[in-house]
């Protein structure tokens, strides 16, 4: 079965979406990611969408759902790399992606994730 790979790096999960996803593939990613947050005891999820040429309401909702589910599972999600044309279109479509944290690129996304995890004050992510 076709799947989007999820990479584990320490306490982070990294997903790079490089294909034009049909709805079932998007749902599979959401399910896989939710399971993986638990099995990998992940504290942060970074989703790179710099290759995505379009985000419609279904895919936008998936990001919102992933962010909400990860929060319930004690992890933070950041979506990075949205193309400007995609951002303009999303807003006109009527999607604000409220509840989804975003960053310009992977580097800033990782900084944001680290900050979020450290600011929880439970010592998670401050092992170094």
């Amino acid at each position, binding site marked *: 079965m076709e799947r989007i790979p999820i990479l584990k790096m320490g306490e982070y999960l990294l997903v790079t979406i490089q294909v*034009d*996803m*049909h*709805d*079932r*593939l998007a749902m599979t990613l959401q399910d896989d990611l939710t399971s993986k947050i638990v099995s990998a005891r992940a504290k942060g999820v970074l989703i790179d969408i710099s290759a995505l*040429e*379009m*985000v*419609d*309401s*279904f895919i*936008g*909702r998936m990001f919102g759902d992933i962010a909400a589910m990860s929060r319930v599972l004690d992890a933070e999600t950041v979506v990075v790399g949205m*193309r*400007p*044309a*995609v951002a*303009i*279109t999303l807003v*006109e*479509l*009527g*999607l604000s992606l409220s509840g989804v944290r975003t960053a310009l690129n992977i580097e800033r996304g990782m900084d944001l994730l680290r900050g979020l995890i450290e600011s929880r004050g439970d010592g998670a992510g401050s092992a170094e």
Partner: protein
Amino acid sequence: MLVPLSENRAISTPEDVVAVRQAVRQRAVDLGFNLVDQTKIVTAASELARNTLQYGGGGTLRIDEVLHGSRRGIRLVFEDNGPGIANIELAMKDGYTTGNGLGLGLSGAKRLSSEFFIESRPGEGTRVTIVRWR
């Protein structure tokens, strides 16, 4: 109005929705649409193709290149023989859905298009036509 090029596609699986996006993108590129306009028409097409599949039980898309004076554009006609929409005014409202989506498909696609037409008869089907001018 002159119609130089036309193409028909079936929408019966989620993969067909992806194929619709790619076909519309290609047509927009061929017509010289800028990146933002390409993205808008592709996103509108994705919303409407999904509606055709989910609510119409599948259907067809016709892609036309349209000319009006010196303006060029793309016209997309989505057609299904599904249950139809009882109350179009309600269906066009942001956030209204009879499924489990966000209710942005029709209203969002309208905002992303230059022109938008919808016809529906309960028990017979739905036809949505959009045009995006370059």
